[in-house]
């Protein structure tokens, strides 16, 4: 069965200003209702297929992000949400910042925006589904 029909996401807030976090949670509300696509927001990396990260990476949360990524079962995908998660944005020059999420773990989809809108976030997750399916097929053929 294709992983496309039941992607479970876990959401981690890096050093975000909470703008993108609110938009991610808005996806769960009746207006956007991502459970329509079988998407559930789980609180456990071991159950999740897609890791959503908002905010940039700093010295304190880089190990957390790496841990979360390592604890997820294959196949898995990472979506960086918002300008900060993509590049570090205007926090990039701070002394404690490493930059975007791709400085610690491989990122599959970059979702731009400050803050990223719920429609774009859902689009990003859908893009991640294609990545997941490809990884699953590679796992089967390997």
């Amino acid at each position, binding site marked *: *069965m*294709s*992983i496309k*029909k*039941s992607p479970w996401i876990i959401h981690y807030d890096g050093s975000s200003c909470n703008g993108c976090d609110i938009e991610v949670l808005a996806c769960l509300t*009746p207006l956007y*209702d991502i*459970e*329509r*696509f*079988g998407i*559930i*927001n*789980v*609180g*456990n990396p*071991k*159950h999740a*297929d897609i890791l959503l990260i908002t905010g940039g990476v700093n010295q304190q949360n880089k190990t957390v992000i790496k841990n979360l990524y390592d*604890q997820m*079962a*294959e*196949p898995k995908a990472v979506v960086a949400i918002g300008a900060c998660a993509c590049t570090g944005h205007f926090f990039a020059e701070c002394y404690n910042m490493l930059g975007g999420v791709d400085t610690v773990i491989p990122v599959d989809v970059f979702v731009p925006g400050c803050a990223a809108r719920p429609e774009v976030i859902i689009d990003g997750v859908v893009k991640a589904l294609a990545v997941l399916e490809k990884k*699953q097929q590679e796992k089967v053929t390997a």
Partner: protein
Amino acid sequence: MNAWIWGIVGILLTPVVAGLVGGIDRVITAKMQGRMGPPVLQPFYDVMKLFSKQNLVLNRFHHDLVICSLIFTVAAVGLLFAGENLLMCIFALVVGNVFLVLAAYSTNSPYSMLGADRELLQMLAAEPMILLAAVGIYMATGTFDINLIASGTHSAIQYLPGVFFGLIYVLTIKLRKSPFDLSTSHHAHQELVKGLSTEFAGPSLALFEIIHWYETVFVMALIYLFFASRPIVGIVAVLIVYFLEILIDNINARVKWDLMLASAWVITLIFGLGNLMLLFILK
């Protein structure tokens, strides 16, 4: 021979029925929250996906204990449909549950341990009432044999309204629904990590879901046994009870464990034991 066939039919049909019930449950829950909700077949998609994922096994016992749990839970449902002894079915279900707790205890994760502790508390709260229900059915029908209970002319419900109420009360615990979903919940938003199922990933988690399907059908069959002489009334009662459980799930927040334990035991004592004592005196 007939009993064997019924048992196997029960074991094979249970995942189909329980998966559909789970899907309808999720749609109704979504409607109650003003959302559209997932497709009805979503539980099947979830389980199939989980089977295709990597299994993160933590130690030698972890996955095997889940399989043991599955075997005993499936056996409990099989025995129930085969019309065997009601007490034996209940004990098999409890053993299945204990294996699940052992699997959670076998890991080092504090969240998993916490979930296992709470699962034990839930069993402590729910099992007395379920055993009393079996005793009540024995007092009302004169037998523990499910075949005889199901083919009897009198429904147990007319002697056991109190026991039935008590059973519905602890059913919330067995179905893992709010306010008594202490060990693990269907809803991520009221969970610290994931309680009992924290350390299960991929196929292990799929087995965990399937075990829950069998448990759901088991307790629903227990409800049905109260109305066994009138099958249609029985099925309607099961549907109403399940709808009530969804409603209770949606209008309640999780309670603390001491309130769950105390209230479940008070209900068991007053409605369960009280009903049985009245039945003993009056019959």
